[in-house]
């Protein structure tokens, strides 16, 4: 597995001038790799299952298990899958170049979110997830 830094550099270097289906495959694979990092960091084996036809979505679900704040990137993952479908099914569509640009930015957002969460796990906990932080504080065993 490449490092997150390497993935970030590859995302930066992606050229939307390349073949659209190839770009779509690359972005999707990078998204999966980012999520593999997250799942592995939580001590699990990244799934190879698919959800709605996408391993990306299965990985997201695995990563969000018992962690509602990870749903903050749920729609980002779904947008990535959506753009993949657009570019694979309509590679020559007049909007294909624009769709490719947007797919790279969506993949970058997933990378930035997961990267941020790897550094500060609570990212998202305070906002939409409504996770009470005291749960964990109170759950600590009393000092002997």
């Amino acid at each position: 597995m490449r490092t997150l830094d390497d993935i970030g550099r590859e995302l930066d270097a992606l050229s939307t001038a390349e073949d659209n289906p190839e770009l779509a495959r690359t972005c999707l694979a990078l998204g999966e790799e980012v999520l593999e990092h997250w799942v592995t960091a939580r001590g699990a084996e990244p799934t190879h299952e698919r959800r709605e036809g996408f391993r990306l979505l299965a990985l997201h679900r695995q990563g969000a298990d018992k962690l509602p704040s990870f749903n903050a990137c749920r729609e980002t993952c779904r947008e990535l899958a959506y753009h993949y479908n657009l570019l694979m099914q309509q590679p020559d569509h007049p909007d294909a170049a624009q769709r490719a640009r947007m797919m790279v930015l969506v993949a970058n957002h997933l990378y930035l979110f997961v990267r941020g969460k790897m550094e500060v796990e609570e990212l998202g906990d305070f906002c939409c997830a409504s996770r009470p932080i005291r749960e964990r504080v109170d759950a600590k065993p009393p000092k002997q």
Partner: protein
Amino acid sequence: MTDKKTKYQEVAYYPGCALEGGGHAYNRSTKALGKKLGLKLKEVDNWNCCGAMEVKNIDPKLQTYLSSRVMSIAANKMGMDTVMAPCNGCYHNLKKAEYDLANDPESVEVVERLSKKSGHDTYQAGQVETIHALDWVKETIGEEGLKERVKNSLKDMKIANYYGCMYTRPRHIFPEKDQGPGSESTSKPHFMDDLLEAAGAENVEFPLKTACCGGAHTLSDSDTSTKLVLNILQAAEASGAEVIATECPTCHSGLEMHQIRAEATLGVKTNVKIIYFTQLLGMALGLKPKQVGLHENVSDSFAFVKEKGLA
């Protein structure tokens, strides 16, 4: 007339703390828009903080109580059946309290105990309906009503609509959403798109409309927030947008502040304007920029709105 159209003509208005501080432009523009549209806002008497993110994450049941007090005053003291909260955080918290009080006996017990101690009637689940400012305009005036009232069309204005996270997440506290045609979507919200399009704007395809901006980590982990916001700003510009329309004071401030910070710390300048949807609709209906508080925004959009014929 639909039921909601009648029901929302007069609502209890819960501005919340942010709209009295950094988000005052949203407060001013919401009130001005309501007045222009002939809708009545009755501010909740002696309202308190909804519990925001700080209380909610330390003691969620105390947040449920704080939000329930606002709804109790609206229902039991003011006799209102609808509370309108323009702030996503307040809206989210009141919806969450409603859900908890309908589904969690422990929350009911805590709210009963604290309400008694505080000397006010206990809020009972279902006494009021909490709605967002988007629901309020959409249901009362609607797209057709807006089209009839537009004086300064937003034509030639390309807008990316940014809803943030708390307007749609977590999905279970918004049972009225995802109910098919006419209802709001939690995965691809569209109410703001619908209203601004009715005012003449061109909405761009924007895939990050509910993407995380770093939210509450904006101060504790500023670098991550700046990078996330910058990506949102760049995606908006890449999609052709001149403006990001917002419907939450926290999202709005986050986008504005990190736009500046991205330029200062990362050397990346973006030019997309950040304007509340209530400001855009107000100007489309003929209100002056100052009447909708454009001068209270951090980013300067005066030249832009003038160029678009709105000033």
